[in-house]
């Protein structure tokens, strides 16, 4: 029970941290953003409440102090950079503690001390804000109550009473209201009763305009800045929604990811069970007098096909989650990495609402972190170099996501030094990855792609942050495991962009089923180029291996049975060969027979076989047997 609660606290906690961070970032830019201030208050308030459910005293105390500061800022609206920095630091600390709770189940050892220091810093700010506002003149609270008709129409209501000489001074109060952002409702009435209309003065302004807007207070006030003394503004959202969370706004249901995974696995198995029906229909049709039964079976199979396809797609959509929370985790990490390297970066995130399969979100954290580290460590120049190049002191790193058809494109773009192709070539030669000749023949894009070569690390000196001998090959492998790819664009002096192109959902993989000895194996069909039968006498030994001629090319031939350790079959007059493309080169795999082609959901191997080289995953066959699906490209490494 407690475990369930903790799991929920961790996942909600991360969302609240992300939302508070987002609001604080807005406040750092616009300290008078009332919406962001309210949002931040709600997040901190909810976090504090949740922390109270567990024995997390340092967290509760620190959040309590943060809430006090926010309460004061909301009442007086005098937030300054120092306030927001302190609050940022609190949110970062909570984020770190959540990570620790996730890993170890307890707060880190220094939590008491760290929490106390944060709390002291907040208390000092609370004291200074209170002192400042005691002397400052307070704005007179408005006595105006917005009309009931405005309920639920927007966030901010305004009452605008133009002066009687407004028309003479050139104001058009209607135009001013029309220009207000997010206008959602308007009421026009006379300021004073009309009296006798025979004396009506068309040039004496006698209007009261009441309007409601979906925009925040500050935007509304900005629209009326030239007539600021003539308006009264009321926040419609502030009073009732804080501290109560948005009731009814949430139409989502929090479901344990494992249950969804189980559902997806069942839907996947159903596809395979359905595949068996086609076989059965064919068999029935072959029986004497079975024609009608076979056709009926086939008709049912077609129907089932469609339903199962729909089910699979729908389950796939259940698994879609927004990228926002993943992106949000990088704000703190970017600040920490930059601080450790004595650099300043500003991380911007766009497209956090793009949804992709949960597996992809889960699998992206490590590679994105790696790319982020690389960008800050190797991409972003030291402060003096940036200054000389006329770039802003804070480097900009942008995470963006956008959906393109059934793919999602995720980019990490920095405005650093970019990747120098000549430098990469020189390093590659120096590290023995390439010969001088080969290196000189490479064009710039191909040179940049060298950073994906295993063992290649472009840092000319190993740093504590990213130069740990782990190259970008890890990033490329991760992208490929998720069914996608990664490319790098770079402009020297302007910056680099690492672009992931990934499927939105985990798709059905087309698999070719082959046999070697007694065993059946799957080969991912997207790597298979063609299948050929090669007479044994056309196979020639080449050094330790064998090769055969395929039209005008010589293709190396390997026995799949040898690779997977299957029992070798005896001599045959000709070989069945599956020609596949592995790392850009054609390779022939000799097999005993090609049995089938099928669509399958290939699941990664778990347990002991998780890291087995050349194994992409496994899928279930119609008869319930497990089929190992091999990746030819990895097999011949």
């Amino acid at each position, binding site marked *: 029970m407690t475990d369930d609660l903790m799991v929920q606290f961790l996942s909600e906690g991360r969302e609240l941290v992300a939302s508070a961070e987002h609001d604080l970032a807005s406040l750092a830019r616009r300290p008078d953003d009332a919406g962001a201030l309210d949002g931040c208050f709600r997040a901190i308030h909810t976090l504090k409440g949740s922390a109270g459910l567990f024995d997390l005293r340092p967290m509760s105390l620190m959040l309590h102090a943060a809430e006090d500061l926010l309460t004061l800022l909301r009442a007086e609206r005098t937030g300054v950079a120092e306030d927001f920095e302190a609050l940022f630091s609190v949110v970062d600390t909570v984020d770190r503690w959540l990570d620790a709770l996730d890993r170890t189940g307890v707060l880190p050892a220094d939590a008491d001390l760290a929490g106390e220091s944060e709390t002291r810093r907040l208390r000092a700010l609370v004291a200074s804000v209170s002192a400042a506002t005691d002397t400052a003149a307070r704005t007179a609270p408005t006595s105006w109550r917005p009309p009931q008709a405005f309920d639920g129409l927007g966030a901010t209501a305004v009452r605008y009473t*133009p002066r009687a000489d*407004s*028309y003479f001074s050139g*104001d*058009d*109060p*209607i*135009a001013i209201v*029309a220009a207000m952002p997010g*206008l959602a*409702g*308007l*009421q*026009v*009435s*006379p300021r004073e009763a*009309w009296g006798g*209309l*025979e004396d*009506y003065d*068309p*040039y004496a*302004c*006698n*209007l009261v305009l009441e309007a409601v807007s979906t925009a925040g207070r500050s935007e509304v006030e900005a629209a009326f800045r030239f007539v600021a003394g003539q308006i009264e503004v009321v926040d419609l959202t502030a009073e009732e929604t804080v501290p109560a969370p948005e009731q009814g706004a949430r139409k989502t249901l929090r479901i344990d990811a494992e249950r969804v995974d189980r559902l997806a696995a069942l839907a996947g198995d159903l596809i395979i069970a359905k595949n068996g029906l086609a076989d059965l229909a064919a068999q029935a049709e072959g029986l004497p007098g079975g024609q009608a039964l076979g056709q009926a079976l086939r008709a049912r199979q077609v129907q089932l096909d469609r339903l199962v396809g729909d089910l699979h797609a729908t389950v796939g959509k259940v698994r879609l989650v927004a990228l926002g929370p993943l992106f949000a985790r990088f704000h703190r990490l970017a600040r920490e990495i930059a601080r450790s390297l004595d650099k300043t970066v500003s991380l911007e995130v766009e497209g956090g609402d793009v949804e992709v399969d949960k597996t992809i979100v889960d699998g992206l954290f490590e590679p994105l972190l790696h790319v982020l580290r690389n960008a800050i460590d190797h991409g972003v120049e030291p402060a003096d170099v940036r200054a000389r190049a006329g770039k802003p002191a804070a480097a900009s790193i942008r995470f963006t996501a956008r959906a393109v058809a059934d793919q999602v494109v995720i980019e990490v773009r920095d405005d650093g030094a970019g990747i120098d192709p000549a430098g990469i070539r020189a390093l590659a030669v120096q590290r023995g990855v390439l010969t001088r000749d080969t290196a000189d023949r490479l064009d710039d894009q191909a040179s940049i792609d060298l950073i994906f070569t295993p063992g290649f690390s472009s840092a000319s000196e190993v740093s504590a942050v990213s130069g740990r001998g782990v190259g970008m090959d890890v990033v490329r492998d991760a992208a490929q495991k998720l069914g996608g790819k990664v490319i790098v664009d770079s402009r020297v002096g302007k910056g680099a962009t690492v672009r992931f192109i990934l499927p939105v959902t985990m798709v059905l993989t087309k698999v070719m089923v082959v046999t070697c000895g007694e065993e059946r194996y799957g080969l991912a069909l997207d790597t298979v180029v063609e299948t050929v039968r090669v007479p044994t006498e056309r196979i020639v030994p080449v050094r330790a291996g064998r090769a055969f001629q395929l039209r005008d090319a010589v293709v190396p031939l390997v026995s799949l049975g040898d690779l997977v350790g299957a029992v070798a079959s005896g001599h045959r007059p000709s070989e069945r060969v599956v020609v596949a493309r592995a790392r850009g080169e054609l390779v022939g795999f000799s097999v005993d027979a090609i049995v089938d082609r099928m669509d399958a959901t290939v699941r990664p191997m778990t347990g002991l076989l998780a890291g087995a080289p050349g194994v992409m995953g496994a899928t279930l066959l119609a008869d319930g047997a497990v089929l190992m699906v091999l990746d030819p490209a990895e097999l011949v490494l």
Partner: protein
Amino acid sequence: MTVLNDGPIIRLRGVCRVEDAEPLTALLQGVSDSTLDLSMCEGLHAAVVQAILAFRPTIVGLPDDPFLRDRLLPALTGGRPSDVSRP
């Protein structure tokens, strides 16, 4: 010329500016039960709006401008769309 007196109907055409408030007031003061056609109206100055509010003519015709049609007109007719009909 944006205020047109077309027999029993007063038509507002194009963008009505502050100086249109006076001729409109004169026309509205002349008849007890006037009709105002806004179908060709593209913009109303507050002084013109105020005259309409004061004299409450029957409004016909829907302007194309979304602000006029969806925000201002309902405010002038008390939100009763039945007050506004196509001429």
